[in-house]
């Protein structure tokens, strides 16, 4: 029957589409990215970031957005974290000071999660801002 041919073709297409992630990744090892901390990041501030690691992992973009708003709109550059430490709100001078290895630190996760933040439209790898 000619209908049977079309139905089988349809089922084959259905299974191929549904199983796409399985055959696309076949034979490819895709381990989760490992981040490299620079010596400076390990030493400075006792190896601690401005906020706890858990928070930074999931919400650093939020923090950076608030920093940008504070600096650009309110001209307030001082960030006080939960344990009372003060930091200069600056991506280039504070974050990238320690995490100067953008390729091994920022990009690995961003590429893995297919995120293209527009931070780097203006901020380049490791510049020194002049104030």
């Amino acid at each position, binding site marked *: 029957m000619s209908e049977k041919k079309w139905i089988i073709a349809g089922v084959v297409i259905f299974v191929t589409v549904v199983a796409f992630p399985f055959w696309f990744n076949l034979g490819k090892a895709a381990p989760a990215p490992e981040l490299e901390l620079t010596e400076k990041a390990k030493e400075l501030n006792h190896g601690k970031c401005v906020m706890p690691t858990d928070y930074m992992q999931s919400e650093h973009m939020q923090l950076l957005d608030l920093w940008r708003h504070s600096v650009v709109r309110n001209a307030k550059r001082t960030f006080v974290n939960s344990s009372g430490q003060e930091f200069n709100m600056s991506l280039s001078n504070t974050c990238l000071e320690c995490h100067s290895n953008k390729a091994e630190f920022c990009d690995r996760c961003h590429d893995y999660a297919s995120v*293209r933040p527009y931070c780097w439209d203006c901020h380049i790898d490791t510049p020194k801002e002049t104030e």
Partner: protein
Amino acid sequence: MNLKYMYSLLAVIVLFLVSYILAGTGMAFKVLFGIILPYAALLTFIIGFISRIRNWARSAVPFRITTTCGQQKSLPWIKPNAIDNPFSKGAVVIRMFLEIVLFRSLFRNTRLKMKAGPKITYNLEIFLWVGALAFHYAFLTVLLRHLRFFTEPVPILVQLLETVDSFFRIEILYDINQFGLPGVYISGLVLLAAVTYLFLRRVFIPNVKYISLAADFFPLFLIFGIAFTGILMRYVTKIDVVAAKELTMGLVSFHPTIPEGLASIFYVHIFFVSILLVYFPFSKLMHIGGIFFSPTRNMTADTRATRHINPWNYPVHVHTYEEYEDEFREKMVEAGLPVVKQPVETPPEETEKKE
């Protein structure tokens, strides 16, 4: 209160609470929600889907019941409507394609109204069509976008889709409040809005409410739950995206892992998706496969030109008139009844043949 949607709503709320609480209790339930159920759900989905299709493929189509919305091809001087009254296989394919991508049959929706006079009017009612288009295309976009969690490296087309989807950089920013830095995907919000509309329409339009069943509400609530938890994870209580991808990549590469530090809300999301996959083959959601098997849409409307043979017709033993006459010829002649073939014993009177 309407029991039909209350039961569905309660079911989704209970599923939410159960998965949220259990995922927080320990590793065993994380393995259940993150590994076992997704695999089982996908298997159920594929096998169930194929068995439904097998069932439809085996069903006989006794009648040619094409729905037509235009003039059939008949006499050469009558202009036929090629697409809405498909005469050839090609026209059927075109009509089916347009139905699937544009939902043309929903566009025909009209609403009857009585006006002073009394006068009956039929108004074009396109909101269902708009809502359905928004819903289906938003859902498709969301689905394709999620390939970023299931592929490594992420295909360029998926990245392109993400860029287009986050084209509107919606940011709401105050000193203490921040929204929109993981770029806002418009498709997620459209999906949530469309599913809300499709629900409200079933509640507020009386005649639609009358025909709505629990099976109509449950998928709406479930998809609402999926979209809601997804949006929650992205914009409000942020989860560790890298850990999430580690889990999903583990699933598709058959090396399942449960990474550290994934919030319970993630397990709720993945549990809801598993429920949807399991529910799919047993429900009205099968219209994705069913549309291809609708005799009203997949048949040509050429009944005036070719005869449709009912496949149920089996070879019937018929007693023809010739056989009947053979059996009763003598008796018929005796009774003086006319017969087609004269009996052999009595030679016919008209023996003289004209030359």
